[in-house]
């Protein structure tokens, strides 16, 4: 196993601090952060042209000059565009334009190539008040180690829907860690569906802070084969009143793979009216996989409706037999039952 702990030790919340600075600055100096043109969908950092604005940490600010290498991706409204992020040691930031009224849809490809020397990749994404954004995130890892730290800030009343797929390239023994921090301002909605494929080692971690009247949905479908390991953490903190959250994570493990899930649900004393549910179901296809699940509830107010549940099971023999009696052979039956498990 890789020396993840060394890398992680060096990787402290330095980037989170930058994101915090940025958040504060954006809030306090809206003019400076307005997109260069009114109809641009977003500002994207960094810009690779020289800048004449001061720098926060390693961030570059769009200057308003016309020769932005990337800003043309966002200038036409509603144009489906790819924003491809390759190696970089600066924080990437996308701040969507608050003046755009329709739903913005973008593909975001996070590609890590074997030449990547930077293990860490911080990203900051901000959705302005009452805006609606849909992101199709594709993670494709071909580097030995890649750690993404993505901070999503959802301002009041905004909505962010993410469809995330996580795949690995040809590099064997590669490690991918995706840490998503979600900060939900009052009235915002965050929905993410994450599906993975063939990772040697994957951590998909979610930390959500829900302030008030928010909706959070995390749906995860993970599979692990060979000697792969997949670790998922969902951490939802209900801070204010009337927050709704729903976590539904399912895993299918085969061969000698390992899946662990830690689902933390914290409801603070002030968070009355919380409606929070967590479900983790795990299917072990063969006898040699390992599944560890820890759903946790830490509740400090009684004005809530909270449940959690988890199951660990294997292919049901009776169900397999039923399919057999309908002429379906064992291999097809196994596929159908895994599919049924993920759908059900």
């Amino acid at each position, binding site marked *: 196993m890789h020396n993840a702990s060394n890398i992680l030790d060096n990787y402290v919340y330095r980037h989170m601090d930058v994101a915090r600075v940025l958040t504060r600055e954006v809030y306090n100096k809206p003019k400076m952060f307005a997109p260069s043109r009114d109809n641009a969908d977003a500002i994207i950092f960094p810009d690779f042209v020289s800048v004449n604005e001061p720098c926060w940490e390693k961030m570059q600010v769009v200057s308003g000059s016309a020769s932005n290498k990337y800003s043309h991706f966002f200038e036409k409204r509603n144009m489906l565009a790819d924003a491809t992020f390759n190696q970089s040691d600066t924080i990437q930031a996308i701040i969507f334009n608050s003046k755009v009224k329709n739903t913005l849809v973008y593909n975001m490809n996070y590609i890590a190539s074997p030449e990547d020397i930077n293990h860490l990749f911080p990203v900051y994404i901000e959705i302005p008040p009452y805006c609606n954004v849909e992101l199709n995130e594709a993670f494709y890892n071909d580097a030995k180690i890649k750690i993404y730290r993505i901070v999503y800030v959802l301002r009041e009343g905004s909505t962010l829907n993410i469809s995330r797929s996580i795949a690995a390239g040809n590099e064997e023994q590669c490690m991918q860690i995706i840490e998503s921090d979600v900060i939900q301002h009052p009235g915002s909605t965050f929905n993410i569906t994450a599906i993975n494929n063939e990772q040697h080692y994957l951590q998909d971690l979610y930390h959500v802070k829900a302030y008030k009247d928010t909706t959070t949905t995390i749906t995860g479908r993970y599979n692990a084969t060979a000697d792969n390991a997949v670790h998922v953490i969902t951490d939802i903190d209900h801070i204010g009143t009337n927050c709704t959250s729903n976590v539904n994570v399912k895993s299918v493990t085969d061969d000698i793979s390992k899946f662990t899930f830690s689902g933390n649900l914290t409801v603070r*004393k002030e968070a009355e009216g919380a409606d929070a549910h967590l479900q983790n179901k*795990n299917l*072990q*296809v*063969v*006898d*040699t*996989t*390992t*599944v*560890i*699940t*820890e*759903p*946790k*509830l*830490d*509740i*400090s*107010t*009684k*004005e*809530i*409706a*909270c*449940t*959690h*549940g*988890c*199951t*660990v*099971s*294997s*292919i049901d023999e009776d169900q397999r037999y039923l399919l057999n009696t309908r002429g379906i052979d064992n291999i097809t039956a196994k596929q159908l039952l895994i599919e049924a498990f993920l759908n059900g």
Partner: protein
Amino acid sequence: MAYEYPEGFVTPVESDDFEPGLTKETILKLSALKNEPAWLTDFRLNAFDHLQKIKEPNWSTVNYKPIDFQAMRYYSAPKFTNKDDIPQDVLDTFEKLGVPLHERDALLGLAPKVAVDVIMDSVSIATTFQAELAEHGIIFCSISEAVQHHPELVKKYLGSVVSYKDNYFATLNSAVFSDGTFCYIPKGVRCPLELNTYFRINARNTGQFERTLIVADDDSFVSYLEGCTAPAFTENTVHAAIVELVAMTKAEIKYSTVQNWYPGDENGIGGVLNFVTKRGLCKGDYSKISWTQVETGSAVTWKYPSCILRGDNSVGEFYSVAVTKHQQQADTGTKMLHVGKNTRSTIISKGISSGNSINTYRGMVRMGKNAHNSRNYTECDSLMLNNSRALTLPTVMQYNSSSIVEHEASTGKLSEEALYYLQCKGLTEEDAINCLVTGFCKSVFQQLPLEFAAEANKLLSVTLEGAVG
């Protein structure tokens, strides 16, 4: 509303006490006083040596002032020479507590017919129905007595389920345990009486370190219940106990606890600090161990009655109601470790919290590599009577694919609609709350032996008085 703990009185009685402090000499003195054989003294000394190398655990959610282990006494025995000569004050105490000390009362139908062993501070002061049980070959006596009369049995099983190195409090107990109950049920015998141990702390500044060992040989059955109370001292009292159960082939042990140690007052002053290691080994095939507990007392509770399901087709069960109010803290739960094939475990945990209390369920279900075709069902529900804090922290580890684990948990409050409905039918608010809470606990109370279900119900309603703010 003023808080009442009716069992909080002290009985004036002369006692033999050790000076406070814990050193190797304390252990040697204790062992000599009890006339223990060398192997047992060594057992204690090994534990004491180990104790010097380890630290108290701090991973749980309970917080308490640091314990000064040198400021406690490790032995206090009421001074009467033999069990037939119990002073009137003491007799009155147990009458007040409702513990039947005399066989005669039971035989006259004035008290339930249960065999009782009464432990006051560090010694057993009475054991009833020993002769009748002996006719069946059943040994039911204090551990100290068992060491004298049945040393081979005690030596064989003591420490076999909870090793002296298991955790800090187990090590402490293994070094300084005073008294407790020993029970052996021979092959094929179904114990005809409920066995009951009653623990009473009376002396100040004295730790209570009881040790219980129950062995059920092939094809036997025993149902055992322990109850406990303590005076309302303003200092914390430390109670660190070990209970070991061994069930052989096709044997069944049913172990019930009604825990009502002094919980401290509304402001969290005083109260017993309750650190207990309870573990059952389902050694033989088709054996069964079930733990049922109703926990209403203690300022701090730290206990996880667990089952090791080693025998194939063995069954482990855990039923618990834990009530916390005011400043109480409970971190309790269970571990079901499935080792053998076709093993089954059921966990039903109900937590009720109010005031500023913290009520945590901590559980582990582990399906080992060879535990094929095993099943676990867990249901954890937390009822919050006001804005206290309830945590549910289960862990499921599955190392084979032919087993099934199902876990469900919910946290909530009393249904306002149901409360309103009951009050419309003439119940007072308090009675309505009692009714709903009893219903919430029903599946656990059903597991208690008949005689004690009523007592548990009563204890629950007394505990809940004034709990809903």
